[in-house]
């Protein structure tokens, strides 16, 4: 049993601007824990988390793969999230490297086919198109869940980057919910980017987080090339 990262340094004020780890975070941790031996035997060199928020997931991966063996790159469009990511890394003795940016744009030129592990718990809640675009522009907590059409507006943009970034035996973990139409996601990934995936049914609890109007009934998709 790998312990959940220590988040005791984060305060209620932080969670006004940054997504607080919840059920969807924990299913991603469960998937990584299930794969711990495989992930270690891959001897990964670079991991990249998109939308790292509190920094909980990359810190957890750090406790699996080792704090100094891997470069833990984390991006988030929200500057508050980048601060929390760095603090959570320090708290858990994993040197996380947050970059305040959208998806992986400034890394594409240099990390072609060289990222071994990509992690993404995306904004997957179906909303109006404008709500999702507005949330990305505002760079605050709403951007962590507002997902636009089918909840896939942000995730769909990232798929082409995954194909560019992932190393030959690299692995991509994505959190998705039924409303995202998971079979259609798998088809698009396979047909457009030759990414084979399998669905990991980890949780079927239904949570309603009233403050965020976010409900969760989801799975983790693990994909590789």
């Amino acid at each position: 049993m790998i312990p959940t990262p220590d988040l005791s340094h984060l305060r209620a004020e932080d969670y006004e601007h940054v997504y607080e780890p919840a059920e969807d975070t924990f299913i991603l941790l469960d998937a990584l824990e299930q794969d711990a031996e495989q992930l270690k035997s891959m001897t990964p060199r670079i991991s990249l988390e998109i939308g790292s928020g509190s920094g909980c997931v990359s810190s957890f991966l750090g406790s699996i793969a080792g704090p100094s063996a891997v470069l833990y790159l984390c991006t988030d469009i929200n500057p508050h999230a980048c601060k929390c990511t760095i603090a959570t890394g320090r708290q858990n003795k994993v040197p996380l490297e947050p970059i305040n940016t959208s998806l992986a744009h400034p890394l594409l030129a240099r990390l072609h086919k060289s990222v071994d592990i990509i992690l993404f718990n995306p904004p997957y809640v179906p909303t109006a198109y404008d709500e999702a675009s507005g949330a990305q522009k505002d760079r605050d907590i709403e951007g962590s869940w507002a997902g636009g059409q089918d909840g896939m507006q942000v995730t769909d943009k990232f798929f082409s980057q995954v194909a560019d970034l992932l190393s030959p035996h690299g692995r991509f973990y994505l959190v998705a919910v039924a409303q995202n139409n998971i079979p259609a996601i798998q088809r698009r990934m396979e047909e457009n980017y030759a990414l084979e995936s399998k669905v990991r049914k980890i949780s079927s609890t239904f949570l309603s987080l009233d403050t965020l109007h976010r409900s969760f009934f989801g799975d983790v998709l693990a994909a590789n090339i």
Partner: protein
Amino acid sequence: MVRLITHNLLACHVKGCTSNNFPLEFKDVQLVPHESWGILRYRTKLPRCLDDDFLKTLHHVLLEIHVEEGIMICPNCKHNYPISNGIPNMLLAEHEIG
């Protein structure tokens, strides 16, 4: 913290800026631990024979030095990317996004 290994992976991504957009030039930086400026003029080409001392120095430069404050400037389009509290701000304005 922006370690030099991370700086070495960042390229300018302003719309249309696709050549000579790497490495970003440092300006007005504060380093932790404190080091002389000369270290930022590092080159990416490595000599063929790497002895232990060289590898130790390389490890120190790439993994132990952090840039806490400063600016990274694109050698091509001169876009400025600030670093504040060890976090590089690579966000672009709407009209700059490709």
